[in-house]
């Protein structure tokens, strides 16, 4: 037997149902925040949107707040004096959550060049060989400094940008 989702009370409009869900699942922040109902304020609104929780509530499932990840790192790359931009950061045992892989993303400003001949890029139109300039390398080191994985061909596998 088909049943209407009880969250859709009185045939609520879609926008009301979705908004109510987003609010009820949000994690309250701001000066009006308390342990009770969501108290929106001008800076935080309804708070942090907990979409994981919203989806769970939509399905009538677990409604526990999602923990804010503790393993996020952000690193501005700096010039080390030899025209190289470096941005090392450490991953400690506190950052590692069992069963959850970690990932590194590098955003780098540059452009595509033809590795065969930068002055004759039409060669790469025929032979391939486009690559991103400046190049980037990524290495994963253990606590003794040994390379576990990395390099420009290991982790990244291919150039990070698409032409066109």
């Amino acid at each position, binding site marked *: 037997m088909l049943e209407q989702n009880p969250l859709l009370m009185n045939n609520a409009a879609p*926008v009301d149902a979705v908004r109510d869900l*987003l609010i009820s699942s949000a994690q309250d922040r701001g000066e009006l925040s308390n342990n009770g109902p969501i108290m929106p304020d001008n800076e935080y609104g309804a708070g*942090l949107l907990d979409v994981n929780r919203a989806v769970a509530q939509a399905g*009538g499932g677990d409604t526990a707040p999602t923990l804010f990840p503790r393993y996020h790192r952000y690193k501005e790359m700096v010039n080390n004096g030899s025209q190289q931009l470096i941005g090392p950061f450490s991953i400690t045992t506190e950052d590692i959550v069992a069963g959850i892989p970690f990932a590194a993303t590098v955003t780098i400003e540059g452009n595509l060049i033809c590795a065969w001949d930068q002055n004759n890029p039409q060669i790469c139109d025929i032979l391939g060989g486009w690559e991103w300039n400046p190049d980037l390398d990524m290495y994963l080191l253990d606590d003794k400094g040994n390379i576990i994985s990395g390099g420009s061909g290991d982790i990244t596998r291919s150039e990070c940008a698409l032409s066109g």
Partner: protein
Amino acid sequence: MRLVAGVGSGSQIIEGIQYCANQTDVQIISMSLGTTSASDGQDAMSLAVNCASDSNYRASCNVTPINSKIVVVAAGNSGSAPGTIGAPGAAEKAITVDAAANWSEDGKGELSPAVDRRLRVASNLILPHLAYVFCRPRQVTRPVISAIAVLLWRHLSQPDRSR
């Protein structure tokens, strides 16, 4: 659909909202635009949003939407003081969204007002399997919320939730 190129008139926006409201296969209207002046939500653009979203408003609508739409609007960049959200973000039935200033558990709205006495869902997002998503630039926030809204609605409206 593209309504304006950079700057457009309110009537163009309203026409676009009404057009989308009358498309059977449209579930969501997502707009990253708004007036620079504040609105109390009673302007024509905001009312067009209400008309598109809720059948209870249809008696006062020029165009009757085929079915109710979810309308997501960018909150704007006018700051966090009260009374700084323009139209159509001030519409009562809009889900008006804002982005976070930084990656943190307390990441507050960056430049946009978040509430202004109405709902302004904002800040960092927590997505299934992806944990939090830090939407920067801010322009990313609205389409992400729009996609989430559609998914939530489909989930809610699925009669048999055991599937």
